[in-house]
C-alpha cells in the first residue's frame, strides 16, 4: 500500500489476542488508523478496550510468551513494525518511537541514578561518550523543567516526586528526539494540578521537537486540551473517530454519547447528576458477533447483535460504526446532556 506522505504511521486491521488458561482473549480486533506528522492522536476508551495493547504492540513490548499477533500491519518508515526482527526493533525503540508510561513511581529503575537512565539511550543510539551523554542529560532535565538539573542528574528516583519522575520519564523518551511518542495514560497516576503541568509540557515539547504523539487515555478532559483527533475504542475496535471538535460537538455513536454524558462539566447545573453507562464491557474471550456495545446501548436494535456495522463517514475526518446511521434505522437524537456540549 502506498503511504500517504502526511502520515508517519499507518495501522491497518491490527488484531492481537492473548493466550490465557481461560482461552484466547481478543484484545484488539481489527484496528485501523493513521498518525499524521506533528499531530496528537488520542485513543480513548475504558479499561480493557484494547487501547494500551494497541500502543504497546507498536513498540512490540507485549509479553512474548502469550501474545498472539492475529494479523494486520503497522507501516512506519516504509516498514511493517510488526514484522521487524528484535534487533531491528531495538533500533526503532528510543530513537524512532518512544514511550511514556502510566505510573512514574514504578517506571524508573530504583537502583540507577536518573542521569544514567537518560544517558543509556543517548549512548546506545547516538553513540555519545559518557561525558557528552551526561552533559546532554542535564540539558534534557532542564528541558523538561526540572530545576537544579546539574545536581538532580546524580540523584536516585526515590529523591523525586511523582510529577518530577514523570518529567524524567519524558526526558528519557525524548532523549533521541523520536518521530513518534506514545504516551500511555501519562497523567493518570498524578495529582490533578500536576496533570495539567505534564500535559502542557508534552504539548510544548511536541512543538519544539516536532514529534507525533499517540495519547492513550480514558480521560476525555485530557483529550480536549491536547489532542487534534480522537479515536474512541470499545471492545477492541475503533467505534468512532474524528477531530476533537467533531467528536465532542457532533458525536455519532451511543458509546461516545455515554462517555461525553459522564464527564463532569464545570458549567453544568449541579443538580444534574452525571450519567454513567450502565453495565460492563463484554468478555473478550468470547466477544459478541455484532456491535459489542449492544448490551449496554439504550438504542439497540434487532440488527445490532448480529453484525458489526460498517463505518459511516460524516466528514473527511469523522466516521463512526453504528447501525443507527443505516438508512432504515429510526432517527435518534443524542441525549440532552451531550447535546448541551454542542
Amino acid at each position, binding site marked *: 500500500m502506498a503511504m500517504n506522505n502526511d502520515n508517519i504511521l499507518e495501522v491497518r486491521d491490527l488484531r492481537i489476542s492473548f493466550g490465557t488458561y481461560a482461552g484466547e482473549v481478543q484484545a484488539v480486533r481489527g484496528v485501523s488508523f493513521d498518525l499524521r506528522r506533528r499531530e496528537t492522536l488520542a485513543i480513548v476508551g475504558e479499561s480493557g478496550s484494547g487501547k494500551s495493547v494497541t500502543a504497546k504492540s507498536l*513498540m512490540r*513490548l507485549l509479553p512474548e*510468551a502469550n501474545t498472539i499477533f492475529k494479523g494486520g500491519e503497522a507501516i512506519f518508515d516504509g516498514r511493517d513494525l510488526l514484522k521487524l526482527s*528484535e534487533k531491528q*526493533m*531495538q*533500533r*526503532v*525503540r*528510543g*530513537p524512532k518511537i*518512544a*514511550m511514556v*508510561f*502510566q*505510573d512514574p*513511581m*514504578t*517506571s*524508573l*529503575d*530504583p*537502583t*540507577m541514578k536518573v542521569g544514567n537512565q537518560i544517558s*543509556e*539511550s543517548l549512548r*546506545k*543510539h547516538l553513540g555519545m561518550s559518557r561525558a557528552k551523554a551526561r552533559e546532554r542529560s542535564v540539558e534534557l532535565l532542564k528541558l523538561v523543567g526540572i530545576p537544579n538539573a546539574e545536581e538532580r542528574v546524580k540523584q*536516585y*528516583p*526515590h529523591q523525586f*516526586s*511523582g510529577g518530577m519522575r514523570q518529567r524524567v*520519564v519524558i526526558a*528519557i*523518551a525524548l532523549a533521541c528526539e523520536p518521530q513518534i511518542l506514545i504516551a500511555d495514560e501519562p497523567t493518570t497516576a498524578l*495529582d490533578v494540578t500536576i496533570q495539567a503541568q505534564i500535559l502542557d509540557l508534552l504539548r510544548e515539547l511536541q512543538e519544539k521537537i516536532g514529534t507525533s504523539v499517540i495519547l492513550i487515555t480514558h480521560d476525555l478532559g485530557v483529550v480536549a486540551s491536547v489532542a487534534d483527533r480522537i479515536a474512541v475504542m470499545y471492545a477492541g475496535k475503533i467505534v468512532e473517530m474524528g477531530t476533537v471538535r467533531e467528536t465532542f460537538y457532533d458525536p455519532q455513536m451511543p458509546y461516545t454519547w455515554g462517555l461525553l454524558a459522564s464527564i463532569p462539566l464545570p458549567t453544568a447545573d449541579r443538580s444534574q447528576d452525571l450519567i454513567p453507562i450502565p453495565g460492563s464491557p463484554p468478555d473478550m474471550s468470547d466477544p459478541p458477533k455484532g456491535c459489542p456495545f449492544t448490551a449496554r446501548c439504550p438504542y439497540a436494535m434487532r440488527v445490532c447483535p448480529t453484525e458489526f456495522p460498517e463505518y459511516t463517514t460524516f466528514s473527511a475526518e469523522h466516521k463512526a460504526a453504528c447501525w443507527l446511521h443505516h438508512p432504515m434505522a429510526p432517527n435518534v437524537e443524542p441525549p440532552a446532556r451531550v447535546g448541551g456540549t454542542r
Partner: protein
Amino acid sequence: MLRYVARRTLYMLLALFVIISVTFFISKALPGTPFADDKLTPQIRKQLYEKYGLDEPILVQYEKYMLNVAQGDLGNSFYFESRPVSQMILQRLPVSMFIGVQAVIFGLVIGMVLGIVAALRHNTLWDTLAVVVAVLGVSVPSFVLGPILQYWLGLKLGWFPIAFFESWIYSVLPSLALSVFVISTVARFIRTEMLEVMGQDYITLAKAKGLSGLAVILKHVLRNALIPLVTVMAPLTIYLITGSLVVEQIFAVPGIGEQFVQSIVVNDYSMILGTTIFFSVLFILALLIQDIMYGIIDPRIRISGAKE
C-alpha cells in the same frame, strides 16, 4: 543508627547468656563423665574431679564458669591434655572457614547461574530442571548427600579423595556437599527475584529505550534482583555452621565441627560450651550484619515504593 546498634548489642549479650546457661546445664545432664576411662582408679578420678572443680555443687560450678566467660576465658579442655579451649577452636578454624567460604563461593556461582537460567527460560524445561535441582538441594540432607558424593565422585570416578584434609583437592567434596544447600537457596531466590523484577514497569521502560535484551538483564534486572540477596546471608551462615558438624564428620575433616562432635561424645564440658559460644557469636553477628544491611537498603526501597 548508633542507638540501634547499642540496643542490638544488649539483646545479643542477653541471648548469649541464655544460650550459655542452657548449654551448661544440658551438657552437665549428659550421661557419663570426661573421666570415664576404665584404667583410672576411683582415687585418681576423685583427684581429677577436684582438680577440675567437678565435685562442687552444680550452681557453684555454673557461677565460676560464667565469671570466667565474662572475662573472656573459655577454660581448658577436660579431655585433650588441658589445652585452652579458645586455642583449640582457633587452631581448627582455618580449615572450617576454608571449606565454608569455598562452599559459599560454589553456591553463589552455581546458584546464580541456575537461577538466572530458570528465570530467563521461565516455564520451560530448563526452568523445571533448575527448580527440581533446587528442591532436591534443600531436601536431601547432607548425611545422605555426603556418602553419595564420596561413592560417585570419589570411588567410582576417582576424581577427588574422599576423606582427610591434606591439600586443596581434599576440600572439594566437603565444600560441594555443603554448597548444595547454598546453591538451592541462591537459585530459588534469584529465580523468584528476577521474575518479579522482570515484570516491573522500569524493565519495560528499559526495553522501550531500545536496549538489547542482554543489557536490560545485566544493567537493570540483575542489579535489582541481587540486592535482596543479603537477606539470605544469615540463614546461610547458620546452615554452614550446622552443616559443618555433619559434613566434617563424614569427610573426616579436622575442623571445628568435627571437634565439636568429638567433644560431645567424650563429655568435654568446657569444649562443648566453648564451641557453642563460638558458634552462637558467629550466628548472632550474622544476624546483626543482616539487620544493619536491611537498615541501609530498606529506607530506599520503602520510599521508592511509596505513593505520593
